[in-house]
Each structure stands twice: as structure tokens, then as C-alpha cells.
């Protein structure tokens, strides 16, 4: 859980005014949209029973902008923000804008601010880049999965139901500036109010949602860099949970371990979800995890893999648990070009049928434990030794 809680608007801005109806960067023109990689800027179905237009009406005129890309449906009511003062954030944003500028004809080389439409385009790019990176690292290709044509939700094939890593429906991401809007959306469409970042499975669409609000990020985390990491974390969790079609929840270690690995690649400073509610988030002086993990390995003080595989409460994880989890995934990815990690993902997320032999979650838990042993070729204790040896060889002391 983020250290952030509901708090108050970070700065006085006239920021809630309606956005320009037409995207100033593509003018909504088909040729420009194609070049930018968009299927649509709306309207489209968000999920069964509600369209983008319906959501705007439901939320009392919340200034939402929409984009459907190759792999995501995105809604954003994020306000305009100035360019960051923080040098690393400014540098990474500059690089992002440069990449975006190749696909968005109307983008100035040095915008004076990141207006709401530009924020939408940036998040669309970030999500697509994350998806591409996820597939690249884990050796996955769109063509490995069902074409989706005629498959339909409910027909389970070996690789899943549809083309989005096994999911029939595109993942949905909704980014609200204000928690109030997120809470209203969740009241109407997710079965009850949600005030914190939330993931939801749309059963009829066979797709996953990640939603959050900027307002939840407070203090030193009240910036777009931290939001980027929060969104990436949730998006990866959803890709993992939906992998090969969602029949059961991924084990905590797998979804959080992969999510953590990918967001540390984006920016390790934002230690999203490493502190429970009511605790300070860890500072920038605790960002270098390699030496810290190495030191724990040297002193043989770390959570056992056997325990990690059985974690049942993500809110109970300590900071050290998060570091060690990340390191084990790092090991699984780096030791053999992620072949083992890929295989673990495939085997752990093998669709679990309803066949009466225990609840689906019980069967899935046994499957996950078996997958770990069979794919790594090791019992958890032996894996600990192999991982520890790798850490001592690969991680620096400082």
C-alpha cells in the first residue's frame, strides 16, 4: 500500500476545466491516429455495460480523455502539470517526449507544460512500451496466443481465450486526478466504492482494470514519476493475473515480484507498495537494493523461498521481503535470459478447470508449488542456495 493517503490538491491550478474536445496533437484524423498507434480516441466500450460516454455522464462531467491502443484501453482525467524540476525525471521525460514526437505530429520539441492530452499520450506510450518490454523480457509474442476471432469469452484454449497474452479483452487503465471520481466509478461499475488504487476483473469482457488517482500520492511521491511506477506496477500485476486467461489469481510472489522487477527498471526511486499503510515510505538512501540484499545473504538473514511461495497477505510483507522477492525474480530473469522465468509463468498460470477436485484456488496453489519445483528443478531450500550464490557473485557490496 502506498504511504499516500487521501490528501488535498497539490497546487492551486485552474485545472478542472473541460479539455479541448479534439486532440490538438492528432486533430483526431485517421492518418495521424494510425501513425500514433491508436485504434481510437473514443468513444468505445470501456467494459460490458458502459461506454466512454456513459462513464463521463456517470461521473458528473469528469474531464476524461480516452485512447485505445493496440493493447490497452486508457482513460485519463489527469490535470496539466509543469515540467519537473527533478533532473532525472526531467531527463527521462525529455526522452519520452522525443520518442512520442516521432509519432505525434503536433508535439512541440519543448512543451512548456504537459497538458491533459499530452499526459494521455504519454501514458498510452508508457503502457505500450511496458507491454512490449514485458513480452520482450519473457520471450512472448502476440502470435503465440489465440487470435481471438470467434474465440469469445468462456471458451478456454490452451494458451488462453484471446490475443492479449491469453485474455480476450484489452486491459483497461483508468487514471483519475481525484479520488472522488474513482470512487464514483467503482460504486457504479465495480460493485462498491474504492478509495485506493484498485484492480478489477471484468468477468463479461475477460479483461483486467487498473485504476488509481493522482490524489493518493502524497509528499515526495506526489509527482508523475511515482505515478508512472504505480501504473506500471498495477499493469504488470494484471498482465500476470490474466496470463493464459484468468482462471485463478497468480501467487503473490509471482505477480508482485515481476511487477517490482519491471518498475525498478523504470525508476528504482519510487518504492511503490513497499510500506504498509501508516508507515513512512523508504527514502532515496535505501534505493540501491543490490548491496542490501547481498549483505543479508552474507549474514544468511532473508525470508525462505518456501515461505515466499506461500505468501498469502501482500500487506504483511516487510521492506526486506520486497527486496528479496525482487532479487529472486532478478535471478530468475538474468541467469538464463529469463527462460526459467518464462517457463514458471507459463506453468504457474496454466488454466485451472472446474473439475471438483478442491476449489480452483486450492488447485492453483498446488499447481504453483509444483511448477516451481519442476521448472527450477530444485526444492525451495536448494533454490535458496543457488540464488544466494548468484547474489554473492553478481551484486556489488556498495
Amino acid at each position: 500500500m502506498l504511504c499516500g493517503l487521501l490528501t488535498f490538491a497539490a497546487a492551486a491550478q485552474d485545472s478542472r476545466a473541460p479539455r479541448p474536445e479534439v486532440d490538438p496533437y492528432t486533430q483526431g484524423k485517421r492518418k495521424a491516429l494510425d501513425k500514433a498507434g491508436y485504434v481510437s480516441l473514443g468513444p468505445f466500450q470501456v467494459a460490458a455495460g458502459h461506454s466512454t460516454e456513459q462513464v463521463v455522464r456517470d461521473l458528473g462531467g469528469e474531464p476524461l480523455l480516452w485512447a485505445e491502443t493496440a493493447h490497452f484501453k486508457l482513460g485519463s482525467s489527469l490535470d496539466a502539470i509543469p515540467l519537473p524540476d527533478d533532473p532525472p525525471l526531467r531527463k527521462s521525460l525529455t526522452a519520452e517526449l522525443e520518442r512520442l514526437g516521432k509519432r505525434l505530429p503536433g508535439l512541440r520539441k519543448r512543451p512548456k507544460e504537459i497538458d491533459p492530452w499530452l499526459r494521455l499520450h504519454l501514458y498510452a506510450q508508457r503502457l505500450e512500451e511496458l507491454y512490449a518490454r514485458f513480452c520482450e523480457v519473457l520471450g512472448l509474442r502476440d502470435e503465440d496466443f489465440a487470435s481471438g476471432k470467434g474465440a469469445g469469452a468462456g471458451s478456454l484454449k490452451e494458451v488462453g481465450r484471446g490475443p492479449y497474452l491469453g485474455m480476450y479483452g484489452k486491459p483497461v487503465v483508468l487514471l483519475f486526478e481525484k479520488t472522488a471520481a474513482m470512487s464514483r466509478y467503482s460504486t457504479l461499475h465495480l460493485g462498491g466504492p474504492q478509495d485506493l488504487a484498485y484492480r478489477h476483473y471484468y468477468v463479461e469482457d475477460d479483461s483486467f482494470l487498473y485504476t488509481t488517482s493522482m490524489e493518493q500520492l502524497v509528499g515526495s511521491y506526489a509527482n508523475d514519476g511515482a505515478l508512472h511506477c504505480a501504473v506500471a506496477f498495477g499493469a504488470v500485476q494484471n498482465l500476470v493475473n490474466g496470463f493464459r486467461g484468468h482462471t485463478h489469481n497468480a501467487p503473490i510472489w509471482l505477480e508482485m515480484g515481476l511487477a517490482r522487477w519491471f518498475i525498478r527498471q523504470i525508476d528504482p526511486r519510487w518504492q511503490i507498495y513497499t510500506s504498509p499503510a501508516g508507515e513512512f515510505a523508504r527514502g532515496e538512501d535505501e534505493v540501491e537494493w543490490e548491496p542490501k540484499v547481498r549483505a543479508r545473504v552474507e549474514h544468511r538473514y532473508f525470508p525462505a523461498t518456501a515461505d515466499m511461495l506461500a505468501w498469502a497477505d501482500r500487506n504483511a510483507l516487510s521492506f526486506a521481503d520486497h527486496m528479496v522477492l525482487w532479487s529472486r525474480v532478478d535471478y530468475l530473469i538474468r541467469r538464463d535470459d529469463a527462460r526459467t522465468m518464462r517457463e514458471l509463468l507459463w506453468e504457474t498460470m496454466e488454466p485451472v478447470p472446474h473439475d471438483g477436485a478442491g476449489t480452483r484456488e486450492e488447485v492453483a496453489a498446488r499447481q504453483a508449488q509444483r511448477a516451481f519445483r519442476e521448472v527450477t528443478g530444485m526444492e525451495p531450500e536448494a533454490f535458496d542456495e543457488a540464488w544466494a550464490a548468484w547474489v554473492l557473485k553478481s551484486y556489488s557490496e556498495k
Partner: protein
Amino acid sequence: MPSGENSRGPSSLLELAMDWDHPVYVAPAVVDDGRTRAGEVRRSLPLAQALAYIAKDDPRPLLVLRDCFRCSGTDDALMTKKADNEKTMLMSRWFHCVRLPPDVLENDHPFRSLFPGEKPAHLFVSQPDGSGRVDLMGDQSRTQLWDAMGSLLAQSYAQPAQKPLQELSRLLNKLDNIDDQIAKAQTALDKIIESDGPASRKFKKLHAELSHLRSQRNELRNEAVLVSRLELREGSTPAAPGGAREG
């Protein structure tokens, strides 16, 4: 940024967080000749019905704020950037805090009757049935706001809120102190693990200290819960008969 919150620790921020309810009106489905069809066309509900819908079965006095696109953030009508907002946040725990979207002022919005007129209030406090209502325009002083909230608390609860508020303020300071100690102890413990390992005497001492601090923090949090308990009066009556007065 409203003053105060940025210097507070995470436990205090949890205590200060306002628990907003964001009701959305869903018209009941209509059954016609045995078939269910979509609910009625959107329309403004009568005041009593709108109040009943947002109050639900929560017996606490209401604090109802309407979001507004003209305000820079939607809390500006309730909070101020200059003065201390902590008292407002602490008092809010004894209210059912409801937040409505900006389009509540559209004439066909189901909750329009809550904000009547051409220049409606920005927020109001009242009993769940609307009695004792005090309207606030958003530019009220802290004193006016606290007087309005205080009047509803006096009507609604058997005990005065003054002493609990003072106790809660003291508890916030204690929580900040202990959060700080916990953060330092945790960092120190991590450093000892990494430098000397768990066999170190310092590890055992710090581990015990951290455990003790966390227990103390839990006690303080529990104390905040106990201090916050005020008994609702049975059938609380409004301060003045009918209508709303501006604060």
C-alpha cells in the same frame, strides 16, 4: 497545500483522513408486465428523498460538499491553504461526509434539491433529515465553519466534542513522535542486519525496541478510537425550527 498535513507522519495522516462517501443515484429498475426495464429518466428528487438517499442508515449528522470545477481543487470550499485544517479534519470523523459531483447543479440531477437556488451553498451541515441545516458558501472563515460543525455536533451527540478534540490533537503529536522513532529504529535495524548480522547484540536490542514501539503505536491508535467515541443523542432536535441559515 493546506497547512499542517505535510509535516504530519503516516499515522497522523491516517487519523486526519476524511472518510468521504461518494453516493451515485441509481434509479430503481421498473418492472412492467413481468419484464424489468431500465430505470426512470433522470430527474431531480424531492429534498426529503435526496437526503434519505445520501444519508442511508448512517445516523451521524451530514456534511455535504459539492465538487466544483471553478475551485482549483475540490476541497477549497472546506479547507484553506493558510490556516490550520486539522480541526476540521478531526471534527469530520463525527459526521457522515458526503461529496457530490460538479453536475449536481444541473436541474435534472437527482440531488439538485440539496443545493437549491441560483447561487447555492457550496457545502452544508445538517441532521440526516435536513433539520438544523447550516449553509456555507465556501468562503467562510474557519470560525464560521467550526461554529457550524460545532452546532451540529452539540445537537447530535450527548457529550461535547471539545475534550476529545484536544485529546486527539495531543495524540497526533505523540503518533508523529513514535512514527519518527519507528522509522529511525527500522533503518538502524536494517543497517545492523546488513553490517553485523542477526547474531549481533545490537540486533536483538533494536528488534525488541522496534517491537515495543510498534505496540506503543497500536495503543495510541486504539486510544484515538476510544477518545473518538461519542454517543448519539436519541432523536436529536435541531437548534432552530426548519429551514437553513447561512453560517
